[in-house]
């Protein structure tokens, strides 16, 4: 207002330009545009394309844009592919549970029991150190650990706990679960530790002062307050595990086939339509899982 009046008094004859309210909106659109364009080109368009291709006609050597549901029928009538879907869901649930079981206590220690902020940051960085090597090395490193002549078997035999090496350790579903748990655990630890670190220490002291022991405090205060972290971690782990193919390929000896492995094989043999079906199914499962998690906790409110 003061600007307007001063302009009026000095140059009364000239019309005063009042900044329009719309300028703010234009800036907002400008800011949001790159993101929207990116999402359209790299997410919405490919997904639409994938859905479209899944209805194309696939013959042994070529694929034609003639719409058909043959690939879909094949997917849902084949025990191999339905089996892969169930294996994917089973492995996902097991890995989700194991990353939570391993990750929560770690996060509890890093985020809550270590009072020193610098130290807890250092500990979190330590969790990330394995990521300094490539994904494949991290996965393959489990082979000499779990194999028949592997480190674990040697140690157990040396300690006299077992006489025969445990064969079930490598090239089984167990080895896939172990590998994935190790690789994805940190994605569970991070968000949970972050949420735990945000809990006001006074709140926990207040609960103690009101007479609650640690068990009660954990169940009624710490766990509920860290739930947003658990949900974010679970979403990270879920999305990555559901799309996995490398760990299962490297550690299961091709015995465990996930949807991801199906897609890789089909793309490898140029069966695009069929790979697209598996891709759509996988995307749908992920969408369901993520929306389920978002339903548990209102992240917008909690974070």
């Amino acid at each position, binding site marked *: 207002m003061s600007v307007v009046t001063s302009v009026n008094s000095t140059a009364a004859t000239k019309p005063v330009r009042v900044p329009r309210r719309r300028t703010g909106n234009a800036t907002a659109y400008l800011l949001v545009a790159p993101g929207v364009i990116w999402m359209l080109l790299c997410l919405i368009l490919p997904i639409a394309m994938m859905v479209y291709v899944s209805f194309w006609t696939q013959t042994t050597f070529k694929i034609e844009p003639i719409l058909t549901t043959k690939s879909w029928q094949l997917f849902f009538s084949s025990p191999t592919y339905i089996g892969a879907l169930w294996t994917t869901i089973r492995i996902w649930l097991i890995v989700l549970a194991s990353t939570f079981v391993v990750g929560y206590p770690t996060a509890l220690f890093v985020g809550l029991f270590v009072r020193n902020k610098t130290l807890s940051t250092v500990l979190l960085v330590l969790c990330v150190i394995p990521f300094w090597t490539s994904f494949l090395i991290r996965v393959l490193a489990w082979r000499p650990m779990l194999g028949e002549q592997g480190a674990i078997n040697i140690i157990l035999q040396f300690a006299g706990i077992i006489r025969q090496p445990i064969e079930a350790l490598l090239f089984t579903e167990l080895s896939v679960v172990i590998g994935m748990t190790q690789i994805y655990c940190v994605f569970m630890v991070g968000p949970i530790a972050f949420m735990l670190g945000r809990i*006001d220490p*006074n*709140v926990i*002291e*207040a*609960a*103690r*002062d*009101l*007479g*609650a*022991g640690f068990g*009660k*405090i954990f169940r*009624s*205060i710490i766990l*509920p*307050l860290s739930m947003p972290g658990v949900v974010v971690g679970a979403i990270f782990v879920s999305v990555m595990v559901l799309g996995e193919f490398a760990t299962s390929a490297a550690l299961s000896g091709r015995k465990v086939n996930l949807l991801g492995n199906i897609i890789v094989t089909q793309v490898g043999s140029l069966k695009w339509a069929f790979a697209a079906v598996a891709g759509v199914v996988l995307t749908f499962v992920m969408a369901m899982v993520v929306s389920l998690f978002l339903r548990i906790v209102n992240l917008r409110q909690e974070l």
Partner: protein
Amino acid sequence: MTEGLRLEGVVRRYGSHLALDDVTIEVPANAYVSLLGPSGSGKTVLLRVIAGFEPPDEGQIWFGGRRIDGVPAHMRGIGFVFQNFALFPHLTVHDNIAFGLRNRVAAPVTDRRVVAAKVAEMVGLVGLTGLEQRGVHQISGGQRQRVALARTLVTEPRLVLLDEPLGALDANLRLRMRAELRRIREQLGVSFLHVTGSESEALAMGDRVVVLNRGRVGQFTDPDSVYNQPASVSVARFLNCYNIFEGDLVDGRTFVGPSTFPVAPGQPRPGTPAYCIRHDLIAIRAADMRPAGGEAGIPAVFIASEYSGNAVTYFFQLDNGQTVDVEAHLSHRAPEDLQTAQRYNLTWRADDALVFA
């Protein structure tokens, strides 16, 4: 023997820093004790040690006739009201208040109806009726304060520690909550140990006042004595209502500081040498009026005044640069018409002064 809380020679160290240095105090049953000290004086540490969040390095804590310094916090039966309230952010007002009853290790209340009845009673006592189902972020600061209080009181502690409970409230609300706190305490017959950095709050609230200074108990007596007879210069300085002149007592009859002040025999108390006169006991006279018999005085230049409604504070500067505050309560005197940069004579009755030597 004693029903209340007794601390004997409590020491708390952080590295080489003595946060609590040989603290011995007693909070009787059914009493309101305020704990006054500047920031960094160890007030909060003292409360945390009493509550059991930190162990004392030396000394003993007795409560209700038993020694409690080895007892974990959740078994002490001492309530703690946090400065930032520390409410459980994911619970409603009702569930916050019910938390202790439901979840305490010692004799938890499992009967829903008993919990509901006790919570309802407490909600009525602190004046939160109708807000039970609100989240703690959906109520005002004053209401959160009441929830924090109710949450502690409903567990029926015999002693409640309040860590600057009114610090987070605005001035208007603070005055109302003072009266509320006293009423609630009297109604329940529990003891309150109320930590505050505000001298007026400490004097207004406490039946007795502990003045804590650098981890040591500077004074522990009733509010009137603290105000009128601070035990040391540091207590007087912290009360923020004394002008303090440095200097020395010469042959027991004169205090030589920025000027010479007559001192009556028996007037000096042991302590760091200083001459203290309360802001509101000083009269402003014209520069040519000498102090009469039985009066002390010092010339000073008027700088500025500050009007605060019921009182005016005049600021003077001595020749050595020290500032002297003179407070005039307007119910007693009319505001004086003083000329800036003019010299005046500040005078007071010699036996109103506190002399340490």
